[in-house]
């Protein structure tokens, strides 16, 4: 994806401007702060794919000593530049994702039932909220068979990202 290549080859200035742009989208008061709950979205939209745990660590790095609920750009910027330059939290390649699904598909049938997916996503790992689960199902579920044909689903999502 274009973003990944870019962050490696572009100069430092360009990276900084990119981060600032993304930050500004959520800076509703135009005072260089964003709500801490939006940081995850910003970081991810810049091309990184951290887990929730990794995200919390990042937030802890940039929070104020006494958490105000807001993150300031001046703290966020250097941290984010480092993350991008070090190419941390790279997105997961497609084949790895496919493997992940296959691991969950104990019966190796090429699909997951709705109940199976729900169970794994809401009980294992870093569980989904009900909203996240519903949203994922709405796109992934094949209404006729009531299953998730994960190969097709992945293929569709990957195209979409590009």
């Amino acid at each position, binding site marked *: 994806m274009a973003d990944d290549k870019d962050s490696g080859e572009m100069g430092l200035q360009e990276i900084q401007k990119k981060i600032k742009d993304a930050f500004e989208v959520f800076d509703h008061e135009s005072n260089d702060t964003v709500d801490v709950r939006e940081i*995850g*979205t910003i970081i991810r939209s810049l091309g990184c794919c951290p887990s929730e745990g990794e995200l919390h660590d990042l937030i802890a790095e940039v929070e104020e000593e006494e958490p105000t609920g807001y993150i300031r750009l001046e703290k966020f910027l250097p941290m984010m530049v480092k993350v991008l330059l070090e190419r941390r939290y790279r997105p997961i390649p497609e084949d790895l*994702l496919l493997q992940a699904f296959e691991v969950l598909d104990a019966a190796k049938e090429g699909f997951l039932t709705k109940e199976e997916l729900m169970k794994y996503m809401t009980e294992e790992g870093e*569980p989904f909220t009900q909203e996240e689960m519903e949203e994922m199902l709405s*796109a992934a579920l094949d209404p006729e068979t009531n299953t998730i044909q994960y190969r097709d689903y992945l293929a569709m999502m990957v195209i979409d990202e590009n």
Partner: protein
Amino acid sequence: FKAAVLIQRWYRRYIARLEMRRRCTWSIFQSIEYAGQQDQVKLHDFFSYLVDHFTPSSHNERDFLSCMFTEKRLLKDPEMEKYCDYESIEVPDYYTGPHVSFPLLPDHATALVEAFKQKKQLHARYVVNILHEARNHLIQLPNINRISTCYSEEITVCGDLHGQLDDLIFIFYKNGLPSPERSYVFNGDFVDRGKGSIEILMILFAFMLVYPKEFHLNRGNHEDHIVNLRYGFTKEVMHKYKVHGKKILKMLQEVFCWLPLATLIDGKVLIIHGGISDKTNLELLEKLERHKIISTMKYTKKPEKEKLVEESRSSSPWFPLKSRSVPSSPLRLSPQKGSRSASIPCSFIPNRKEISKRVRKSVQLELEKCRQQVGVSEFKVQEELPLLPPESELDSCDLEGVNYEEWKQVADILWSDPMPQEGCKANTARGEGCYFGPNVTEQMLQRHNLQFLIRSHECKPEGYEFCHNRKVLTIFSASNYYEVGSNRGAYVKLGRDLIPHIVQYQANRATHTLTMRQRISRVEESALRALREKLFAHSSSLLGAFKSYDLDGTNFITLSDWSAAVESVLHLGLPWRVLRPQLVTHTTNNMLEYKSWLNDLAKEQLSHENIQSSLLEVLYRNRSNLETIFRIIDSDHSGLISFDEFRQIWKLFSSHMNIDISDESICDLARSIDFNKDGNIDINEFLEAFRLVEQSYLEDKDSELKTSETSDSSCSSQGIH
């Protein structure tokens, strides 16, 4: 389980990217919408400019201008009666729409809703009748409606509907029809943009007449004929009512200005359409004569001796000059420019040089006029000037009861927006009203012992939004406002406890079946299309900006420079680096070959080669301005303007905007549109041509839109070849 975490990580990132796209899409729509609003303001400045600088060289041109500026009001009642003489309008036998008779009964109103659901159209006679009765009712109402939760258990407040009939029908379906037990307040902006504006008005007025104590309407900034010219209501009326449209529009002016300005529930909850300013004063609002404010888009004073003005037509350009007639007061405003207080009249461009230039010009013009008319209206000259003693501030002038201060009060109520920062400053995005901060809200609540404010005016993704510590609630009832899937609509219910209960909806079954991804993609595509259109419209400026970054003449610029250049030309304040992947698709070594990028843009927008791309670009950019101007010129709403009028207006427009298009190409253009060669141009067809250009891009690229050199295309639907 590592596998689970992996999937979740990936999925969350995916959602985050979607969210980012959604936000960007939202900003695109908003900034384009506000840019459009600013255009409107610029248009008014254009007219003021015309008055200042344009010395009519011919009698025709003077008449032309004067008929644009003089507003003939139907002030006197007997005149009004004659005008809305609906009895004479006959309803033919073949009419299958709803019938209306007075006194209006609840069944009639319900029948209207049913009929509109079945896409029937109400006959002009009944429209005029309802408007007539509505006006009679509204005249009796105070500026601020005071209602109480004692009479009805609960009150439902709805926000902007903007002609979206489906949303109104949905609200009544979900919440129930109005009744003595079910009160409704509709907070303005019933019309414009959507296609069902007149139907919405009919329903709202009908219920207001049936349940006068329980059904209330507030005026919004779109209940204004000047705004309607631009945003579609005028067009809709003329299209649906070809014979009586003009009459209906004229009557609407008289109805809109009688709409109440605000509603107060239990003396505790204030409902206004836009917002407040630090100067908002309920006592003042209650006292002023609201019907004298026909439009909040421009401040014009009515001459005290109206008859005198109309007698000597040659001095009609004199009339708008009065709004700046005292040389000294605008001068006094210049030093105050530093503090952007809300008292600076919004029709001024806040630019010191401009103001002093104008003042000089207007003084000169004035002196010239004085000299010219020394014989005829000398006494008039002497009469008017002393009315405005040089020392007085602009806001203490008092002509016919509506002074500047009062007008500003109303403009603030109808146009302001809340902002997170403290303070109160002029609303530059909209051109009228202000931005008000939490401290202004707090002061207002304390001053008048209120609990909170309900307002509308701004589209919100969830249909509603609290701000200022939950003291201000924005409620917006037009779902899918920008595009299918763009946002929800909402309404709020208040019971005796005055605790707001919000109900959201999205009146389009299709959106429910779409996933979030699909919804966002659709809206996004729509926004990007609009954005590309804007980019195209500024092609030449963009080329200039790109060149300035490409000093070596390599024809390449970096992507970073692209972002900077685009922002410097468009001034939309959008996150260009985030949007870039969607707008720039071909890069080599991270460099963009800008000329071919611009060409690609042009190819998307054009479907024919007959008009040079620069001309089309210019017309495109000014399309909505042109449309508005056309509609103003076409004062009899016939849909036709003469060839000469077209040329004239284009000349004026291009000199004001410093557009360099040769007279000849405009003539060619005009001639090619004049299909029947009778010297008249059908406005709608001219504009339709642009729509077709847009459409052909949307449809299959290999559609066959034949372009013909000559103008004898018999099929007029092809527009400009």
